[in-house]
């Protein structure tokens, strides 16, 4: 069995009376491209924040690369890269200045930080506006810059919270190229996304969280087999898909979390 890059035990986070994340047991092996899915408000962002040290768990244990996060937060952070929900950019720096700053914060020496910053700006196609402040960047440019800052120290694990949200096809292509390159070089990537087509294309393994609880975890094939087996047991072998066709990730996802469609009598006044 491959060593776990990320593992959690009984991970929970409570806000007042509400359990945003409850008793989550995650296991992500090194080198996996891991998609963390769930409906809105299911606890995805809360989980990723806890895994990256942006939020303290109420209870439970997090291990990253074999180190317990609570005890070794600085050492763990040195080995991971994060693109959080708000992107964590400093708007009044230029892209180059920000990458340089990020590199040095992650422990690179001054020359290496500057060299990598220049290369990343080139790769992300951000190098032609050296004097533009980040606050004047478009949303897609900011996403690319945030990703560049997260990888400048060549992390072993990369956490991405909705990296493709609000990004056009061109920027999205650049982001995907970088992520696939990292996976090819043995990095582990943990991402949340609502764009299931992209997750299906990129990720080898999936976990689904629903109402704060982990309801499925495994490779896409394992999840598909599980759903098909369950459907077979329930309705005599009919999985609902066309004969011979595999269930898509969207179909798997909807089967697992349940698609609560409104009845005909609801919202009768609408339309």
């Amino acid at each position, binding site marked *: 069995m491959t060593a776990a890059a990320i593992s959690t035990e009984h991970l929970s986070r409570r806000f007042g009376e509400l359990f945003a994340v409850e008793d989550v047991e995650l296991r992500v092996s090194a080198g996996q491209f891991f998609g963390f899915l769930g409906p809105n408000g299911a606890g995805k962002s809360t989980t990723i924040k806890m895994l*990256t*040290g*942006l*939020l*303290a768990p109420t209870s439970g244990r997090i291990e990253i690369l074999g180190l317990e996060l609570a005890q070794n937060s*600085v*050492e*763990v*952070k*040195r080995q991971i890269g*994060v693109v*959080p929900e*708000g*992107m*964590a*950019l*400093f*708007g*009044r*720096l230029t*892209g*180059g*200045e920000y*990458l*340089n*700053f*990020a590199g*040095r*914060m*992650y*422990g690179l*020496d*001054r*020359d290496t*930080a*500057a*060299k990598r*910053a*220049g290369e990343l*700006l*080139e790769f992300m196609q*951000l*190098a*032609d*506006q*050296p*004097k*533009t*402040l980040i*606050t*004047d*960047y*478009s949303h897609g440019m900011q996403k690319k810059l945030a990703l560049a*800052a997260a990888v400048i120290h060549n992390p072993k694990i990369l956490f991405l919270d909705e990296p493709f949200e609000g990004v056009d096809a061109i920027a999205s292509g650049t982001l995907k190229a970088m992520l696939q390159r990292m996976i090819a070089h043995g990095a582990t990537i943990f991402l949340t996304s609502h764009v299931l087509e992209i997750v299906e294309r990129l990720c080898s393994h999936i976990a689904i969280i629903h109402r704060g609880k982990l309801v499925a975890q495994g490779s896409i094939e394992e999840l598909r087999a599980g759903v098909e087996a369950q459907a077979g047991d329930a309705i005599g072998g009919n999985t609902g898909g066309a004969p011979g066709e595999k269930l898509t990730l969207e179909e798997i996802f909807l089967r697992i979390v349940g698609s609560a469609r409104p009845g005909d009598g609801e919202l009768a006044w609408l339309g």
Partner: protein
Amino acid sequence: MSTSRDARGQFAAVAKLRWQLFVNSLRTLRGRMELVSRVVVGLGFAGVGFGGAFALGSAALFFASQEHWEWLAALLWPVFLFWQLFPVMATAFTENFDSSNLLRFPLTYGTFFILRVAYGSLDPATALGCLWLMGIAVGIGLARPGLVPWAAIVLLAFAILNILIGRTVFAWVERWLARRRTREILGILFFLVILSIQFIVPLANHFNRGERTAMVRVVVEFLPVERLLPPGLAAAAIARAAQENFSSALASLLLLIAYGMAIAGLLHLRLRAQYRGENLGETSARSVVPRGKSVVRAGWGIPGVPPPVAAIVEKEFRYLSRSGPMLFTLMMPSVVLLIFRFTPSSSGNPDAFLTRAPDLAFPVGAAYALLVLSNLVYNNFGADGAGVQFYFAAPVRFYQVQLAKNLTHGAVLALEAALVWMSVCLIFRPPSVGVTLATLSGILFALLVNLAVGNLLSVNSPKKIDFGTFGRQRASNTTVFASFGVQLVVFGLAAVVLLAARAYGRIWLATLLYLGLGVIAFVVYTVVLSRAEKEALANRETLIAELSRT
């Protein structure tokens, strides 16, 4: 019919929203602390409001009973100036309105206009202005009861005009502030205007030593113009009516109303643009910058300072260097010394206080330099916005982040102290070694106390600084209140020590005492630095949410 019913519903909904936001804010400790601060500040304002109303009312009663009706202008001008300048000078107590959230609802333009005017008017300047005008009305009424209805109409028109001017200035300035370049130009202009005002009296007196003729001449020259401006018109409208010159009184009132309509027209231009969907956010004002190839230079290396700390220091200096107004404020202490140099004392002595006691010039200038810095020190993550998440995600201890920010602020203060010292040498005379050492040790003590309290407040009561808006708070009420208290204690203590040592002719005693206090302050600072780290980690969710707020 249905439109007016819609509007009523919308006004009620916005009022309910404000109330709900207020009630919900009390769920957190920070919200409750804000409420306590607001109550204390509110009591202060109430004292100023009622005291001012009584004073202005008494003055109005005196002028009216002496038939000096024209002198009412002398009461209305301060009210007018306060009403317009206070919200600009004290943005921490001013509520401005972000209309973008409301525009998605089906508001008519009329409703939007009224909401903008009404919402923005619920600030201390309006409350105090109205209270003072009521005081003046009561004073006039006691002297001449028959004049009350007319005076009430005139003062009401004057009040509405003040509200409209305030809203118009805010709306237009916000437009200009949306662009970084115009924002910086405006900041510099604002600074120069404030500076010029400070210099009028000192310069007039400087060139007319021993006489008051210059000021009198300025006032006399200004009088014909003054009568055509809103406070003069309001005073004239009441005065003419009191003198039974009704046509002239009516003409003054009509001119006052014409002013109001012109100002409302300017406000309409701005609000109409906003209503049509203009976005004043920072990104909408994307500046055109020359394209070229990016060459990333190596960052700063500071001997003896860990690389992450040096990186944050560099980032802080880059932020400061991109804030034109902030750079200008660094010059303020030297400017204040110039003003002190030329301002006569209130006792009638033509020599300024610091001219008579030039050895106090350096301490005064250095203390002012620290005060200028307090905006940064007490909300040291305000400018970072969502970037604050980076500090929690990066492999760096949080105390190192605050240490870097403190080092930056310390370096800025050192630079300012050097500037002040040179200014004192040029404007007054070089301070003695004793005074220089006492001042530097005193400033060190005060800086350490300020940094310690500032670090705690920065993580417990952060406030996002939005460079693209005007009149939105730049610090929380709790922070403003706490920093005021700290300055009062620290500078009070420092002044007592310095003056006592000076009186006994043993200035070195002050140095010793300050160094002793500095050692205690340093111990407190280090304890607080690690405490602030714990609090930052415990409050990280609130800190990130508050600073990432859009």
